[in-house]
């Protein structure tokens, strides 16, 4: 073997792994999203404006003595959309639901095939552990025939965490919220709180 052989061999090994298309897309989204950040000068102006706005808001709240209740559904929507956009690598990759379900054996519930979430034309890609409002959750990723990605979050319904979602008294109710231009649907099914988000 020539002297260059060892260097070439190392190069081959060190550059063998590449990012998946999903990971590349997620990184580009991160870069795109952050690209709209302001320059320091703009920041000073905007900080001043933001400060003024905050003071006005506080005064407004004090003046009207209005207490607004947090929209838990919106908070969940914000959280799952942020996760969906990040597109973190899946910890288990399989098209087989049973295989993926088995992977989540550390959860105190079992992920389910949702009846509300139509599986027509969708292929399960895999999943990873995550959380919704600090409750451990399963994140399942699907892709449809057009290549559109869907993420389904499932967590055990914990009344101490989720009882504020009053609309979810029964399993027929579905709440819909928007975050960052994406629709998030939240519903109760088989004792689980499920949130679904898809690319628009």
């Amino acid at each position, binding site marked *: *073997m020539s*002297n260059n*052989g*060892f*260097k*070439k*061999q*190392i*190069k*081959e*090994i*060190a*550059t063998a*792994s*590449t*990012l998946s298309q999903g*990971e*590349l897309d*997620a*990184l*580009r989204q*991160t*870069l*795109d999203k*952050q*690209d709209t*950040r302001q*320059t320091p000068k703009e920041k000073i102006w905007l900080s001043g404006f933001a400060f003024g706005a905050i003071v006005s808001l506080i005064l407004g709240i004090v003046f009207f003595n209005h207490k607004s209740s947090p929209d838990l559904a919106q908070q969940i929507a914000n959280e799952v959309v942020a996760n969906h956009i*990040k597109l*973190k*690598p899946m*910890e288990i990759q399989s098209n087989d639901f049973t295989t993926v379900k088995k992977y989540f054996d550390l959860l105190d519930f079992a992920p389910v095939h949702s009846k509300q979430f139509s599986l027509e034309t969708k292929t399960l890609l895999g999943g990873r552990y995550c959380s919704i409002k600090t409750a451990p959750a399963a994140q399942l990723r699907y892709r449809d025939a057009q290549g559109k990605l869907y993420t389904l979050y499932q967590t055990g319904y914990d009344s101490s965490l989720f009882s504020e979602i009053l609309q979810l008294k029964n399993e027929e109710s579905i709440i819909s919220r928007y975050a960052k231009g994406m629709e998030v649907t939240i519903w109760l099914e088989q004792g689980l709180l499920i949130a679904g988000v898809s690319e628009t």
Partner: protein
Amino acid sequence: MINFTEAQLNQLYQYALVLCDQPADAYDLLQTSLEQYLPKRAQVDDPMAYVRRTIRNRWIDTHRKEVIRENYENSPPDIAESTLENIVIQQDLLKKIWQQLGSEERELLYYWAVLECSVTEISQELGIPRGTLLSRLHRMRKRIEEQSNPLAGGVL
């Protein structure tokens, strides 16, 4: 959009993977490093080198104890810079050995083979004394030799 080509993102990911050895960790490391780079992009001349340094610093932050131990465990012996160039080894075996090398050893090989840096350049880039790098090269060559042919104590 900040201009990182697909090839550049892959190169940064590969560097993170050299340090972490776990694809998921490498991806997270790259993503957080890119996020750290963005607010400072206006002041950065060489984004690739900057993100690489950020990846390294973040990785060291989480592995500080191991890095310090590895840096100071041996004093540099008297060896030549060309110590790696005449290693001859089968690719399959090298792949196995690669997994067993420490992160800093893989990083050194990455700079040498992928970025094609000399030991002096690596020393400047990583802020590690040249003697320490040569020492590391020496240990690495010895390890590769031992693992590639434990009975003969030499390379194939």
